[in-house]
C-alpha cells in the first residue's frame, strides 16, 4: 500500500509557512544571522537561523497562550498549516500525531532553573510542567483536536524522519488512516552552550560541503507532512501524486557524537531506503543532504553518498538557509523536498567555494529550474549514530 502526502506545513528562519519558505529558497535568501529573539551572550558571536517572531507573536499566529513553550508554538503553526493544506476532516478518519523534538520545553525550564538554583523549593516551579518532549506534542495535539494516538520521537537530528517512518508504518498496518508526522525544535541557551562545548559551531555563516567548512549554525523550526493511506488519498479526490516511497533507519554504532569515518550508518540508511522503494540509486534525481557544515558529518556523509551512488546526482543542503534545526530538520527538509518536486526546481547550496578534497562531487551551487524530479532522497543523521533516510516519489493515484 502506498502512503500519500496530502498536506505539508513549515516554519523556520526563512518563513512562517510554505509559500514564504519557498519564496526565500527560490530567491536564495538565507535566514541565518544575529540572534535577536533569544536573550543570549552569544547573540552577536554565533549566527543562527532563528524564527523571526517573538513568543507573543507566535502565540497570536498559533492561537495559543503566550506563556506556552516556544517549541509548542512553532510546532502548532506548522502542524496546523499541514492539516489545513490537506483539507482533511479528522473526525472522519483514525488520525494520529507523531511529532519529534529534542529540546522539549527547555526554553521555559532554563528560565525557571536559574531561579531554582538560588531559591530552591521557594522558586515558582510551575514553568517546568511542559519540560518533557511528550508534553509539547500533547499541547499541539489538543490544538489540532487529535485524540486517537499521539507519540513523540527523540533521536537527536534524525527525530522527524523517524516520526515520518513510524507514521507511514502505522498507516500501512491499518492502525491509522491519517498521520500528521514531523517535528520541531526551538533555540535555547542550553542547546547553544551544548553545541558550543562540542566546538562544532561556526562563528560565521556556515559553508556546508566546503573544504573550508568550519561547523554548523544552529536553527529552529518545524516541518510536518500529512500522511494518508491509499484509500484516503482516493477519497480526498485531489489527485494526490506524491508518496513516501521508501525509508530506513540504521545505527552507526560507533560513537555518541562522531560519525564513523566511512559513514556506515549513513550508507545503511540510504541503501535501506532505496531497497524499500525498490529503486536503483540511478533513479534518484536529487539528494537533500544532511549537510550540517561540520568537518565530520559532511565527510562521512559525502563518502557514504559516493559509495551508494556510482554517479552522484544533484545534491545540496538547505541548512545553508535555515541553519541546523536539530529535531525538526528532517521535517523541514521533507517539506522543502516536496516543494522542490512540485516546482521542478533544485535549491542550491549557498556560499560554497571549494570542493572537499576527499570527494568526487560538489553540491549544486546555482538554482536549477524546469527539472523533472521524480524521486528525492533526504538524509538526516543524528547523535547516537542515529541515521535516517527518506525517499519521496511522484506517482499516479489511479
Amino acid at each position, binding site marked *: 500500500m502506498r502512503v500519500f502526502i496530502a498536506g505539508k506545513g513549515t516554519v523556520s528562519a526563512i518563513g512562517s509557512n510554505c509559500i514564504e519558505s519557498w519564496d526565500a529558497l527560490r530567491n536564495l535568501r538565507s535566514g541565518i544571522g544575529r540572534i535577536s529573539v533569544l536573550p543570549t551572550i552569544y547573540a552577536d558571536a554565533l549566527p543562527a537561523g532563528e524564527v523571526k517572531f517573538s513568543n507573543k507573536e507566535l502565540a497570536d499566529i498559533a492561537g495559543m497562550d503566550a506563556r506556552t513553550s516556544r517549541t509548542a508554538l512553532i510546532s502548532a503553526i506548522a502542524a496546523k498549516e499541514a492539516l489545513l493544506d490537506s483539507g482533511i476532516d479528522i473526525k472522519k478518519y483514525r488520525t494520529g500525531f507523531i511529532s519529534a523534538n529534542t529540546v522539549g520545553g527547555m526554553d521555559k525550564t532554563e528560565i525557571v532553573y536559574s531561579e531554582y538554583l538560588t531559591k530552591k523549593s521557594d522558586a515558582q516551579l510551575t514553568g517546568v510542567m511542559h519540560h518533557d518532549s511528550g508534553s509539547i506534542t500533547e499541547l499541539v495535539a489538543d490544538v489540532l483536536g487529535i485524540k486517537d494516538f499521539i507519540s513523540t520521537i527523540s533521536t537527536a537530528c534524525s527525530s522527524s524522519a523517524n516520526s515520518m517512518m513510524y507514521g507511514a508504518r502505522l498507516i500501512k498496518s491499518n492502525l491509522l488512516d491519517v498521520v500528521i508526522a514531523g517535528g520541531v525544535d526551538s533555540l535555547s541557551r542550553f542547546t547553544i552552550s551544548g553545541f558550543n562545548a562540542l566546538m562544532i559551531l561556526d562563528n560565521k555563516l556556515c559553508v556546508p560541503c566546503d573544504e573550508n567548512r568550519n561547523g554548523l549554525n544552529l536553527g529552529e523550526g518545524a516541518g510536518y507532512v500529512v500522511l494518508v493511506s491509499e484509500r484516503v488519498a482516493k477519497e480526498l479526490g485531489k489527485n494526490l501524486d506524491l508518496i513516501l516511497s521508501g525509508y530506513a533507519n540504521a545505527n552507526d554504532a560507533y560513537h*555518541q557524537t562522531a560519525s564513523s569515518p566511512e559513514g556506515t550508518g549513513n550508507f545503511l540508511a540510504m541503501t535501506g531506503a532505496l531497497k524499500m522503494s525498490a529503486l536503483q540509486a540511478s533513479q534518484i534525481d536529487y539528494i537533500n543532504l544532511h549537510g550540517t557544515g561540520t568537518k565530520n558529518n559532511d565527510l562521512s556523509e559525502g563518502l557514504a553518498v559516493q559509495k551508494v551512488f556510482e554517479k552522484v546526482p544533484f545534491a545540496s543542503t538547505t541548512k545553508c538557509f535555515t541553519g541546523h534545526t536539530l529535531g525538526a530538520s528532517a521535517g523541514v527538509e521533507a517539506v522543502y523536498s516536496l516543494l522542490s518536486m512540485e516546482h521542478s526546481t533544485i535549491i542550491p547550496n549557498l556560499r560554497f567555494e571549494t570542493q572537499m578534497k576527499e570527494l568526487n562531487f560538489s553540491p549544486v551551487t546555482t538554482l536549477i529550474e524546469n527539472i523533472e524530479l521524480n524521486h528525492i532522497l533526504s538524509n538526516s543523521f543524528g547523535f547516537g549514530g542515529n541515521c535516517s533516510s527518506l525517499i519521496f516519489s511522484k506517482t499516479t493515484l489511479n
Partner: protein
Amino acid sequence: MEELIGTLKNQIVEQLNLQHLKAEEIGDDQLLFGEGLGLDSIDALELIVLMQQKYGIKLANPAEGPKIFQTVRTMADYIVANKKA
C-alpha cells in the same frame, strides 16, 4: 614543573572522571590518546575546558589539541608557555 605535572594528573583524573585510575598511575610521558590511556575526542574537549577553567588558556582551534595533549608533560609545557600571569 614536577608540582605542575602532579597537579595536572589529579585534575585530569577529575575532569575525565577516570574512576578506575589513580593520578600517580599516569606516566609523565604516557600517551593519553589512542593506545595509551585510550581517551577519545570528547575527552579532548574536556581537556580544553580544563585548560580554560584552571589555567585561563583558551584553545580556539581544537585541531591544536592532539599536539598539546599528547602527554601530561606536553600539556605542562604548554601551560608554562601560555599561562596568563
